[in-house]
C-alpha cells in the first residue's frame, strides 16, 4: 500500500502529513503530529477519549481515516486554550475538580466545547446527553456536569461582553 499525502488544518495551523491509507486520524494526530492529547480508550468509537472536531463537527478520531482530513479543519484539545489563556471549560474543569485521573478529560473538553459552541445555555439534561458519548470511570460525571454548567455561564458572559 502506498502512503497518501494530506494537507489539512489542525487547530488553525496549515499542516501537511503523509500516512498510510488505513491509518486513523487518531493515530496520525498522536504518532505523526505528536498531538498526544487525544487518547485511545477503545479504538471502536465507544468511549469518546479520542474526540476531535472536523469542520466543527464532533467526531471520534479513531473512526476517521487520516486521509479524510484532507482540506478539513481539525480541532483538538491542544487548540482549546488561547495562548496562555485557558478556555473557560479548562478553567472550570480544574476549579470544579472535574477530573480525577484525567484521561477522559481531553475528550470531554472537546465534546463540551462542541456543545457550548452550538448551545451556550444548555440545561443539565442537555449537558448529560451531549456528553453521553464520552466515558468517564472516575468521577461519576457529577463534577463534570457542574464544570460544564459553570463554563457555559462564563462563555455567555464573554459573549455578552463582546457584544457590548
Amino acid at each position, binding site marked *: 500500500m502506498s502512503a497518501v499525502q494530506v494537507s489539512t488544518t489542525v487547530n488553525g495551523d496549515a499542516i501537511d502529513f503523509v500516512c498510510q491509507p488505513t491509518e486513523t486520524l487518531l493515530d496520525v494526530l498522536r504518532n505523526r503530529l505528536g498531538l498526544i*492529547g487525544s487518547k485511545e480508550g477503545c479504538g471502536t468509537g465507544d468511549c469518546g477519549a479520542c474526540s476531535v472536531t472536523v469542520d466543527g463537527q464532533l467526531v471520534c478520531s479513531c473512526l476517521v481515516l487520516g486521509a479524510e482530513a484532507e482540506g478539513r479543519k481539525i480541532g*483538538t484539545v491542544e487548540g482549546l486554550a488561547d495562548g496562555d489563556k485557558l478556555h473557560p471549560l479548562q478553567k472550570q474543569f480544574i476549579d470544579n*475538580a472535574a*477530573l480525577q*485521573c484525567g*484521561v477522559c478529560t*481531553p475528550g470531554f473538553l472537546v465534546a463540551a466545547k462542541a456543545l457550548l459552541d452550538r448551545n451556550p445555555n444548555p440545561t443539565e439534561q442537555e449537558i448529560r446527553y451531549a*456528553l*453521553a458519548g464520552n466515558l468517564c470511570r472516575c468521577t461519576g*460525571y457529577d463534577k463534570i456536569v457542574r464544570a460544564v454548567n459553570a463554563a457555559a455561564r462564563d462563555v455567555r458572559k464573554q459573549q455578552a461582553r463582546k457584544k457590548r
Partner: protein
Amino acid sequence: MAHDTSYTDQDFKIVGSRPPRPDGIDKVTGRARYGADVSAPGQLVGRVLRSPHAHAKIRKIDTSRAQKLKGVKAVITSKDLPDLTEGNRGNYDILENCMAREHALYDGHAVAAVAAVDEQTARKALKLIKVDYKVLPHVTDVDAAMQDDAPVVQPHIQHDGKPSNICNVSQFGHGDVEAGFAQADVIVEKTYKTEQTHQGYIEPHACLASVGPDGQGELWVTTQGHFTVRNLCASLLGMDIAKLKVTSSEIGGGFGGKTHIWTEPLALALSRKANLPVKLVMSREDVFKGSGPTCSTSMDIKIGAKKDGTVTAASATLRYHAGPHPGPWGMLGGMTAWACYDFENVQSIAYDVLVNRPKVAAYRAPSAPMAAFGVESTMDLVAEAIGMDPVDFRIKNAAKEGTRASYGPTYGPIGIGPTLEAVKNHPHMRARLGKNQGRGMACGFWFNFGGQTCTDLNIGVDGSVNLTVGTVDVGGARASMSLIAAEELGIPYDQVKCNVGDTASLGHNDTTEGSRGTFSSGMATIFAARNAIEEMKARAAKTWEIDIEDIEWRDGAAHAMGMQHSNLAPLSLAEIAGASPGTGGPIAGHNEVVADGAGVSFASHICDVEVDPETGATRVIRYTVVQDAGKAIHPDYVEGQFQGGAAQGIGWALNEEYVYGEDGCLQNPSFLDYRIPVCSDLPFIDTEILEIPNPNHPYGIRGVGETSIVPPLAAIGNAVSSAVGVRLDHTPMSPPRVLKAIKEKQAGG
C-alpha cells in the same frame, strides 16, 4: 526511626481547603503523559497473541513464519520466559498468567508475542504464528466448578485429598450460630448471585520497555505500583532489581486493576530479544479478556432475629471465583460480610474457586460489594419480616467501639453508627416517591491499610520545596500531599511541588491500593517535613549561635524563644534555605515508614430508582453517599472518590457483566457491549463526608477510595425490589432479569 503516629487534634491552616491540583493544567491541555504517550527512538510495536479457547493444551507453537516476516524483530513464547521462580508458587502463577506455558487457561490467555517495526507488520506476524491446541473441557461458572465432575483447572490443587477447583476454604466468626438461630423469631435464608465485572479504567494497559544486552533496563508504564512492577518483572526475567528502572506514567484509572503485571514482562522480554525499545499497548478487547476483572459469586445468606430487632445469629456461605490461579477473594468476602454489625453469633465460610476465566484482580474494596449485596438484601428482608424500619433495624445492630468484629478483632472508634444516624436524618429519606419508584439503603465496610512508604523533601535555595513520593497519584494525591507538606512547613500551598519518583530515585513503596495513598504517603510526608524542620532549626541555631532547644518552628519560620533572644528576628524558611550553602549544604527531609493502622471505614448509601414495568429498565433518580473519611485533606477529591465508587457500583448493580458463551469464550469484550454508565444514565450524586479521626494518624486520615463501591449493589437491589414488589437476587439487575422477576410475581399472583 519510630515516630509517634497518634492523632493530635490540631487546627489546620490549609489542610481541608480546596486548591487547584498541580497537574491540572497539563491534564486539561493534553500535555500530561499517560502510558501510551511516550515514544523512544527506533521503538518497535509489540502485540500479543491470545488463546481463542477457554481451556486447551498447547502442543506446539510454530513461530518460524512470523520470524521470517520482513520487519519482525522478535517473537517470544513461554520458552523465552524460562521458569526462574525457584518454587515460589505465587510468582510461578504470575509468570504463567503473563504467558501461557503448557496450557491456555482462559479465552484471551497470552500465548505468544511479537515486536515489529509497525502495527501492520505486528498484526500480520501474529496471524503467521501457528499454535497447535488440544481443546480441553472448560468451566466458567463458579457453582459448576465446585461440582465433583467439573473439569479441573489446575491439577496440582487439591481439596479433600483429590484434585479440585476449590483452592481455599476460609472461616470466620464467633459464637454459636446454631444456638443463635434456635432463639430467633424469624429466620430468612436466601441465595444470591453476582456476575463478573471489570474495573473499566478508560486507559488501557500500556508500557514502553527498553532492555539492553548488559541486563540494564527501563520501563515506562501505567500502574498503581511501579515498585511492585519492578520487583516482579526483574525476578521473572532474571534481572537485578537495581538495574531495572520503572517510571510510572500518569495513570488513566486503575481501581485495583493496575496493581499487577500483565504484558509488562512480555514487553521487556521482546525488547531484550530485539535489543530495541518496545511499546506495547493493549486493545480494549485485550483489556477485557487479558487483564484482571473481579469475581463472579454465589452466596447463601441466613439471618435470624427476635421480634424486637435483635439479630440472634447470622451465617454466610460464599463462593467466589478466582480465575485460573488461587487468590484471596472469597476470604476477603468472608472477612467483610458481617463487619458492619455487632452480632453475638456469626459465621462466614468462604470458598475460592478456580475457573477458566481471566485472573481476578482487586476492584476497589475487593470482594466486599458482593458479600454486602447478599447481607444487606437479607437485612432488609428480615426488617420487613419483623415489621421494623430497615434503618432502625441496622442502627440497633450496628457495630460500635468495643464490638468484636466478625473477622476477629475488636473495633476502636468507628463510623458505622454515625453514618446510619446521618442517613436516618437525611432529607433524602423523607422525599416523596412517585409511581414505579422505590427507595433502598445499604451499608458497607472496608479495612484500609498502609504499608511501606518512602518520601523525600528537598528545599531549594529560593525556599520552594520539592516533594517526591513513591505512591502513584491515582486521582489528585499530589494536591493532597502538597497540602500536607505546606501545612507542616507553614508555607503557602503553591510553594510546594509534588512529584511521583521513579524506582531509581526512592526506596521501595508498596502499590497504591486499598486506599493507602493519602494515608501512608501523607504520614511519610509529615515526618519528612518534620525531619527537614529539625535541620532548618539546626541551621538557625548555627546562624544565631544559640541552642537548638531555644528555637521553635512556627508559621514557616524559626523563632528564637525566651527574653534573652528577643533581639533575634525570625528566620523564614526561604532565608534559611538561601543561606544553606554556607551553613552546611542542601536541606532535605526524608522518611521511610511502614505506615500501619490505616483505620477501618464505613459507608451508608441511599438510593431512589424508577423501574419501567414494561421493559424492566431501571433508572437511578437520586443517590446519596454518607461515608466516614477520617480527616478530609482535599474535600473535592474525597467527594470525587465517593461519587466515582458509587457510579461504578451502579453500573455493577444494573448493567455490567461478563457474558460467557457455551464455548467458554467472552461474548462482550467491548465498551459497546459491556456498557458502563454514561453521563445521561446518572443523576448528581450527593455526598456527606463524616470526619471521624483515625486515632493512628497524626492528621486523623483514613483511606477513602474503596468503601464507596461496597453499598451500591445492595442499596439498588433494595430500591428495585421495593419498586417492583419482588426481591431481586442476582446482579446485574438488567432489564431482562427485572422483567422476569416481575413476570414471575404476576404469575405467582
